[in-house]
């Protein structure tokens, strides 16, 4: 028996759990030794022998000096955000996260998505102030220095623009990478002071039902947030993945409202006013009130609802040869912890449960994996997530019935068409291994 035959029989004995080659999520974990044994016996998985090894040029001399601030390998310079308004014309600027080029769950700080409406302010942290006033017992001002002495909490949370995935409202599938389709969400570890800690100091007048949060940016962006959230998990975040916030993400302090639409997580926060009614600011009056079929609109959408998408493989990649691949992606929910992700390779006819990479944090990215053996034939990959509050990611048909779709195909992936898409993303793979965005 030759080596390639022995290996083939090893892979074929893995149990398929759903159509078109999906394998049990535990398969390779429990069979790791058997597979390793097969590989050690001889040639590579493709059957062709590897080249003999020799020293490469970079191994033969002293490398470069270690810099004070590390930057990425020059071979990774394509891993960048896409900008919607690179010349800073007088309108909103967007920078989208390249999810198809990342892995794990934490978005590196330079790649965290940004939306900003009138440029990033250059804030002197020593002069910045946060004031809390309105329906409180005693209005108070806090400096960054003083805030840094308060008890801190650290948590992982995604932040997602209320209009992320807007091109998915197109009546025809838009051919674009995940960065275009879902790039306005990122996930970071945030450290800061709970807003409830500061409100304890100012006191709360029982008439307060909302608070208005205002930024120190040029347009002093303002949003109204229910007091319920203030006393739950709202945070004044000072650190992002261990370092001070990036300027585009709100330096030196931002409001973090885990699971609530990005725009409400007011950056550069300078003022919190407790009030008895929502202010109906520009952004809640207009942009973040999605129109639904029939002409009515939702107001106060608040939550980014449960969602998932496959990052590997995805649009822009191609499968070079039949055989083993790992399907992996991101799932998250603004209403809880990811409970389950199901993956299909046959356009939703059959589904296999994905393995969830722990720890599975609430209101944070969870990465999922499914082992897959691609036969070389057509396949449609889909993922669907559930959270522990009993919410499930809607199928496209039911989502479109409730929320609508555009009348004409979307051609500008950087535009906004309604808000808050949390249905399924499907990747169609043809016999050449090319990947297209499809609706299934």
């Amino acid at each position, binding site marked *: 028996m030759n080596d390639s035959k022995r290996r083939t029989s090893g892979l074929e004995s893995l149990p398929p759990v759903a159509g078109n080659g999906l394998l049990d999520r535990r398969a390779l974990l429990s069979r790791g030794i058997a597979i390793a044994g097969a590989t050690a016996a001889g040639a590579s998985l493709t059957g062709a022998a590897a080249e003999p090894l020799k020293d490469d040029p970079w191994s033969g001399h002293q490398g470069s000096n270690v810099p004070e601030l590390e930057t990425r390998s020059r071979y990774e310079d394509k891993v960048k955000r896409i900008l919607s308004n690179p010349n800073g014309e007088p309108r909103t600027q967007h920078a989208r996260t390249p999810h198809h080029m990342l892995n794990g769950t934490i978005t590196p700080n330079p790649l965290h998505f940004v939306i900003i409406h009138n440029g990033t302010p250059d804030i002197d942290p020593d002069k910045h102030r946060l004031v809390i006033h309105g329906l409180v017992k005693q209005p108070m001002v806090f400096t960054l220095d003083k805030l840094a002495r308060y008890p801190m909490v650290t948590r992982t949370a995604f932040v997602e623009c209320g209009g992320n995935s807007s091109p998915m409202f197109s009546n025809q599938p838009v051919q674009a990478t995940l960065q275009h389709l879902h790039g306005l969400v990122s996930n970071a570890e945030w450290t800061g002071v*709970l807003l409830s800690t500061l409100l304890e100091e100012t006191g*709360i007048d029982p008439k307060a039902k909302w608070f208005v949060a*205002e930024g120190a940016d040029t347009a*002093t962006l303002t949003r109204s947030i229910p007091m319920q959230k203030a006393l739950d998990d709202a945070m004044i975040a000072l650190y992002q993945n261990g370092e001070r916030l990036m300027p585009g993400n709100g330096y030196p302090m931002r409001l973090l409202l885990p699971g609530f639409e990005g725009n409400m997580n007011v950056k550069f926060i300078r*003022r919190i006013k407790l009030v008895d009614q929502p202010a*109906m*600011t520009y952004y809640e009056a*207009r942009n973040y009130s999605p129109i639904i079929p029939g002409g009515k609109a939702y107001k106060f*959408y608040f939550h980014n609802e449960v969602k998932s998408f496959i990052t590997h493989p995805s649009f822009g990649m191609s499968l070079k040869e039949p055989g083993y691949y790992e399907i992996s992606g991101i799932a998250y929910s603004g209403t809880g912890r990811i409970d389950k992700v199901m993956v299909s390779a046959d356009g939703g006819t059959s589904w296999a449960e994905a393995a969830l990479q722990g720890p599975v944090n609430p209101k944070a990215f969870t990465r999922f994996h499914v082992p897959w053996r691609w036969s070389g034939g057509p396949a449609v990959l889909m993922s669907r997530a559930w959270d522990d509050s009993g919410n499930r990611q809607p199928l496209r048909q039911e989502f479109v019935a409730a929320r609508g779709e*555009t009348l004409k195909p979307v051609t500008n992936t950087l535009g906004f068409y309604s808000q808050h898409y949390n249905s399924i993303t499907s990747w169609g793979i043809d016999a050449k291994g090319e990947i297209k965005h499809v609706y299934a």
Partner: protein
Amino acid sequence: MSTPKKLSLAAVALLALTSSMALAADKNGLGESVGLGQPITENDIKAWDITVLPDGTNLPPGSGTASEGAKVYAEKGCVACHGEGGKGGRSAALVSDLKLEGAGIEAAKTIKNFWANSTTLFDYIRRAMPWPSPRTLSDNEVYALTAYILASNKLIGEGDTMDAKTLPQVKMPNRDNFIIKFPDKI
């Protein structure tokens, strides 16, 4: 009879609030406040406190009319982004008869066909306009621009004066067309 009932409701509200505050204290594990905030008076917050509420709370003194607003619109360069007569340019139209009906979810949300509260207009102009130099307009200029846009959209009369009393009374046509998505979170 109504007074004791009101009192007892207030007591319940206070109790509920006190228990949630106690919860907040537990989160910190301190059981007391840190006390590093610096007291400040509302008077010293005035320069920042420009949020207007839909019922008119915090609208400043002053007033303006549409004809005064047309002058401000020309003088302050609003036309550069919003076009002649507010009909739109590289930024959104301020004056439009576009309808929501029949346009699907892509419908242009205009001040006339979408915005629920007239106060939003005053608040946003005052805090964010003109784009290159926000918060440089006087309150009278903001009232005048608000009147100009409302009158051009035929939401008030040409001669109507907008001030702290009249502005909140302007009825916006789409105000009852909203559904609160998550009422249990409010």
